[in-house]
């Protein structure tokens, strides 16, 4: 589509819209609703070395303008993803971003090495920020030195560019971003979910079996925008932004903040046709705002952005 093509490390995106990891499975279900080839990319569900069942149910709960989830990285494991899911995805003209998770450094390294060899995996997304895994997954995402070290190890074995997915549950997101950039990350994806909780009025107990869960949806968008804004001005690697995106307008807001592409998570549950809908609406919105190419909107919120540097309206 005109004005939407974006080039990022490892990724030639016909448009900058992609489903966020964990909100789209491996694409099978949505492929029955529309042709996945229209998407810019697909971020597949987190893959771990061994299969995981994940957490007990209930795994989701609704909150004001958001939802909590504690899926617990359920996935069929590396072998099945490599031998079944990825080959199945080859029928589409669709670069895959493979989300890599684990509980130990070696897990990440193994999964990253193997996934990066798959023909249609054009980039890895290092998930150091899942709040729902107990064994310490969260620590990777909150301690800069640990994140940097892991990034470096994964970079060493990966055959494709590595994007690191940042957790918003940190005191200093810029510090985290710089650490993984130092570790060799080719890009960032952000934000993962905010750690939250809901209690049942009758029993007083957590609504989620896992007690706490990750908050996503429109409620978190202001936090995501702020973080993309801060990080994009502090690093020189590109950012795939996400957190509460529901419309073409939200996509532009993330570009203004400094993102170079945008992922859609929770909104896929509210409207399974949301990604094609946004892709279709973007050209008209860009036109209305006076941009010929979506990249012109990038970083317009920045402190030092030249006034009307790109703007033609």
């Amino acid at each position, binding site marked *: 589509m005109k004005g939407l093509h974006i080039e990022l490390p490892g990724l030639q995106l016909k448009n900058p819209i992609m489903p966020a990891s964990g909100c789209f*499975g491996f694409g099978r279900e949505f492929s029955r609703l529309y042709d996945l080839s229209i998407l810019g990319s697909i971020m597949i569900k987190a893959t771990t070395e061994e299969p995981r069942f994940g957490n007990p149910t209930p795994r989701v709960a609704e909150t004001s303008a958001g939802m909590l989830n504690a899926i617990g990285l359920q996935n069929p*494991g590396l072998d099945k993803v490599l031998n079944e899911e990825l080959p199945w995805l080859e029928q589409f003209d669709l670069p895959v971003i493979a989300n890599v998770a684990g509980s130990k450094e070696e897990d990440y390294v193994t999964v990253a090495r193997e996934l990066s060899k798959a023909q249609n995996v054009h980039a890895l997304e290092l998930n150091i920020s899942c709040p729902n895994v107990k064994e310490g997954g969260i620590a990777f995402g909150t301690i800069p030195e640990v994140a940097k070290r892991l990034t470096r190890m994964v970079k060493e074995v990966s055959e494709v560019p590595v994007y690191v997915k940042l957790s918003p549950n940190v005191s200093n997101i810029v510090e985290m971003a710089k650490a993984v950039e130092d570790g060799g990350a080719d890009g960032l994806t952000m934000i993962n979910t905010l750690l939250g909780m809901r209690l049942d009025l009758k029993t007083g107990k957590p609504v989620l079996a896992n007690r706490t869960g990750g908050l996503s949806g429109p409620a978190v968008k202001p936090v995501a925008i702020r973080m993309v804004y801060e990080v994009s001005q502090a690093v020189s690697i590109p950012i795939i932004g996400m957190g509460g995106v529901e419309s073409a307008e939200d996509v532009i807001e993330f570009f203004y903040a400094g993102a170079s592409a945008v992922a859609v998570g929770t909104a896929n549950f509210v409207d399974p046709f949301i990604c094609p809908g946004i892709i279709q609406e973007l050209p008209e919105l860009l036109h209305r705002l006076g941009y010929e190419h979506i990249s012109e909107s990038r970083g317009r919120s920045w402190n030092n952005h030249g006034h009307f540097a790109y703007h033609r309206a």
Partner: protein
Amino acid sequence: MIRKEKMEIISQKEIAASIFELTLAGELAAEMKNPGQFVHIKVSEGFDPLLRRPVSIASIDEVNKQFTMIYRSEGRGTSLLSEKAAGQKVDVLGPLGNGFPVEEAAAGETALLVGGGIGVPPLYELSKRLTENGITVIHLLGFQNKEAVFYEKEFLQLGETYIATADGSYGTKGFVTDVLDALHPGFDLIYTCGPTGMLRALEKRYEHERLFLSLEERMGCGIGACFACVCHTADDPSGFSYKKVCSDGPVFRAGEVLI
């Protein structure tokens, strides 16, 4: 095929205490194949509430491209839905899930249909299909109390119907299992939908029968993509194998999944 459509409200009425019967029209109704399938409903335009609500299909009118659902107004979502009136539109995603296997019952057989509370509605379309196929149906329906009872007449037109209420204000006092104890009905297979406790009791009681249970679980996507509604398979109760209630279910054969 799964569609998303703004369907028009043909009628909405309160048929029992906080129980609403809502009839919607649109192309989507033509896609509905099996009783026991459900739809996923967005009750408002904005993000209040954010997520869709799963509700079973209670009856299908293919000719007029309409379907009816029956739901209890409970929380924010269903109470907003109950405020809508004929002529307004509702955003429906569906049909979802597998539905009850009507074909499992052969003509001449007797099917026991056991429903509890808001698990009763999908049994209505099921019962219609079964009777159409020459199957004798017996309905066993449990409710909280007299005020909550609905569709007794409708079920009676299709076959024998027994009601239980928890407080004894109507029909047999107690649960559907109490009716079973008293009645000992003869049957060839069972279809059931209702609270998990009821499903568990039935599964235990009839573990060797042809029993089909419709499950409920908190849902995200409703289409099988988010892994919110997963349950263990019965043969691997703590392993990795699983079924999704939304897309593999909501109806499972007894012994298939852990409930």
